[in-house]
């Protein structure tokens, strides 16, 4: 009989690893707490760096899980039991699933921008997050500010909830710099007259085609990039938002009123990641994401034997990275089920 794998979390990582494991011949159950698969990807209209529609990637992923994977939606996990080397995952509606290995792909949440109160999110109407802007793109309507104006000036703030000790997150979220560039280009395409100002600490254009996108934003779309961190935002009488930034290249403080302020919210471990981790006794790293056994050599392995990770539940990742990681996790799980001693080399070198 085929060995059983339960995958928890039906985002990109969960879907792609399930597809690979099922193809390999394992009996795979994918548990997703929402009523549809896809995770965050469902909310992104166009993707960097290709500008391909998110829906296309979603369709690609769905094809992988359509036939061979047992997909359970609206799955609310209440308990995970460990019986010797096997696991039993219980749901609130009484169902339970046995597994020889567990793969956790519970993903991330976007940073709650109300925690960075000085940026005015939730207080001033015309302050929105990158995820909300994406939603506007998705809905395909004209771009207007929450107070009903066609924006003439838009500010985009990088590193909101990332690289910020004041909110307790010191890490870089990796996708938001290039998301800012992508969204700025999209805005400019929809509203050619608009002036856009991106405020960054430094631009992290590390991906193969990111730099080209950034160049296009500057040269083709005349988007302004200003190095400086927003100190505070306040609301003007006409509900435009006044931002105060120190331009650290020019070395002078800068005040600017914008019609719309877009906050590039970072990654934080998702609520599901925290809950499942606490429930099972999985180790968290200093940044609150799951801790992998070794940062080079055991990237998909947890502190509990037979439990593995994939995707953004261990660190912020782009879709490309997530898919690669999901496939790596599938091989790691398979190796474990085929009784390879995965840890022997790591132990020999690094422990």
């Amino acid at each position, binding site marked *: 009989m085929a060995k059983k794998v339960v995958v928890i979390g039906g985002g990109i990582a969960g879907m792609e690893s399930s597809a690979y494991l099922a193809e390999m011949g394992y009996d795979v159950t994918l548990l997703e707490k929402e009523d549809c698969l896809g995770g965050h990807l469902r909310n992104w209209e166009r993707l960097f760096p290709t500008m391909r529609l998110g829906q296309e990637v979603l369709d690609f992923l769905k094809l992988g899980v359509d036939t061979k994977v047992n997909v359970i939606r609206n799955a609310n996990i209440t308990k995970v039991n460990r019986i010797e080397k096997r696991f039993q995952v219980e749901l609130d509606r009484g169902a339970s699933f046995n597994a020889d290995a567990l793969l956790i792909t519970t993903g991330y949440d976007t940073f709650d921008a109300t925690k960075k109160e000085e940026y005015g999110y939730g207080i001033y109407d015309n302050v929105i997050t990158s995820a909300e802007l994406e939603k506007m793109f998705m809905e395909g309507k004209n771009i207007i500010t929450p107070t009903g104006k066609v924006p003439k000036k838009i500010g985009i703030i990088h590193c909101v909830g990332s690289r910020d000790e004041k909110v307790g997150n010191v890490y870089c979220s990796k996708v938001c710099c290039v998301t800012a560039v992508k969204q700025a280009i999209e805005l400019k395409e929809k509203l050619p007259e608009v002036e856009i100002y991106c405020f960054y600490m430094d631009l992290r254009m590390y991906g193969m085609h990111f730099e080209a996108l950034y160049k296009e934003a500057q040269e083709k779309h005349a988007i302004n990039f200003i190095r400086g961190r927003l100190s505070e935002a306040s*609301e003007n009488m006409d509900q435009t938002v006044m931002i105060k930034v120190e331009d650290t290249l020019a070395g002078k403080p800068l005040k600017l009123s914008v019609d719309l302020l877009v906050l590039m919210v970072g990654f934080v471990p998702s609520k599901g990641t925290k809950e499942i981790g606490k429930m099972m006794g999985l180790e968290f790293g200093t940044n609150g994401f799951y801790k992998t056994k070794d940062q080079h050599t055991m990237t998909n392995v947890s502190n509990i034997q037979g439990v593995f990770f994939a995707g953004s539940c261990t660190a912020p990742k782009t879709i490309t990275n997530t898919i690669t990681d999901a496939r790596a996790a599938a091989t790691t799980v398979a190796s474990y089920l085929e009784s390879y001693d995965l840890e022997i080399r790591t132990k020999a070198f690094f422990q």
Partner: protein
Amino acid sequence: MNFAWFVLPFSLGLFLLFILVIFKISFWVRQLPLRDRLLLNRGIFSFKIFKVIKEVIMESLLHRRIFKINPVLGFMHMSFAFGWFMLILVGNMESRLYAGTELNLPYYAIFFKYFVHQPLTIPFAEGFTFIMDFFLVLVLSGLLIALSKRIYSRVVGMKRTTKLKPFDVFAMLSLWFIFPFRLLAESMAAGMYHTGGFLTQPLGNFFAGFLPLGPLSYAMWWAYSIALGVFFVSLPYSRYMHIPTEIVLIAFRHFGIRRTKEYDMFKDVEVFSCSRCGICIDKCQLNTMAQVNTIQSAYFIKSIRKKNQQEAVVQNCLVCGRCQEFCPVGIKTDDLRLSQRMIFENREIADFHYLPQDVPVKTDILYFAGCMTHLTPSIKKAMLNILNSSGISYRFMDEDGSICCGRPLMLSGNNKDALKLMQTNKDIIRSSEAHTLVTSCPICLRVFREDYNLNINVVHHTQFIESMIAEGKISLENSGAKISYHDPCELGRGLGIYDEPRNVLSQTGVLLKNSLERKSSLCCGGSIANNQNYNLNKDKISQQVVAHLSAKEPDMIATACPLCKKSLVKYADIRVADIAELVSEQMVSNKADASRAEKKFNVESVEA
């Protein structure tokens, strides 16, 4: 004349002690400014002296405040101080009655049992013997606790006790040896001459059974005297200097000697008054929550005394006032800390020429949000909503951004630069002719009240809201939400504002009780007063404070300080809100009034 050579160590020690203490006290007094010296002279010959005596008895002898905080520790201190004092007092009465003269040398009473071999012929002789033994037992029981405290500090309910240097151990041991030697010497005397009481007599009889008491007891008298002598001589150089100094401190307080911001004589007296009881150590969250255990007041004060202040110790402190609140000697540890920071930081570096020189508009009520409130705009927005809907007329002093109130600089020790900012703000406030200044930030509030000398009513917004409710200007609807309230350090311990926030909150929701509140409340960790590399510790503290506040599963955490809000929100899974926000949401607003107020506000702020 009664004399034996062994009285010399004691007598010499006492003489030296006397000289050294007098010398030190006169040093303090001579350094006082003339005005304070006059106050001191006047105080000594006024009724105030009785208050001093009363407090000396209650605190220096009975250690009432330590008792309140920690009964076992209180007993330990009391048994040493009061027990020994009574031994000296009763011993002197006894010997004087016996000798029928006032003019004995001090040693006579101390070594009375050596000199007098027949049963006493004074009235209540048995009573005296009993009392003397009783107090000896009391002191010895304190000694036993002290001993076990050194071995295992939890005996007295302390997680950590002070760390000692070799000289301290030496002084401590000399103190500890005094009473066992006394017990042995007196018991042996009793064994020979039957002069003992309920403790010394049976013990003496027991020794008599198998020991050569004559030479041995003589040796014990020597040992007793040497222990006393050594203790006396080491006292001025050890922490035991706190015994005479605390009396000076109590007198200084009652006579109204002035305190300044600098390290002055008052503070020097405080430094020498610290008994290193260690109570402050366990109260400090840097110790209990962040494992920083070298900076607490006990250690910090010791470093001042040793003139060995390290910047890292001086600066690594939240100035949260928790240790000060519990210090049984009443040392103002916060002021002390800031006075030391001035040594490192008090320099004019900033150039504030760019500050706006606005011509302010006249008003009765000024609202000052402060920079932290500008960084928590939901508080600012809520306050403006409350003020506007109440219909009162006011001005928003720092609508276009604040000029810093100066307290952050003061907390870092840079009073010189702070004064420049303060003067600018003061000019604006003065020329507005306002009679009331309302602030949202307790940090600003404190400096406005304590250092600006404004002579107008300076209130926190919780106080102002409370009075607006009382006057019927606004009314609230109770949401029934369960609220856990966090007392901000500057508002609570700093300014004693505990009730107003609670009164207001209990009208917006259901206020939950909490085991560490009011004076014992925790610091949120976000104090701007700690300018060491401190972020990790800050987070450890905030996390634990959030856990504490969430223990009773409230619907939200409320506070009354923008900085507290910011530090708590970082780790809270539930809502963290300022009282102003809750009030603004729960206001039963009279719509017509509200819109009128809004218009008025617009007009005013355009003018401003």
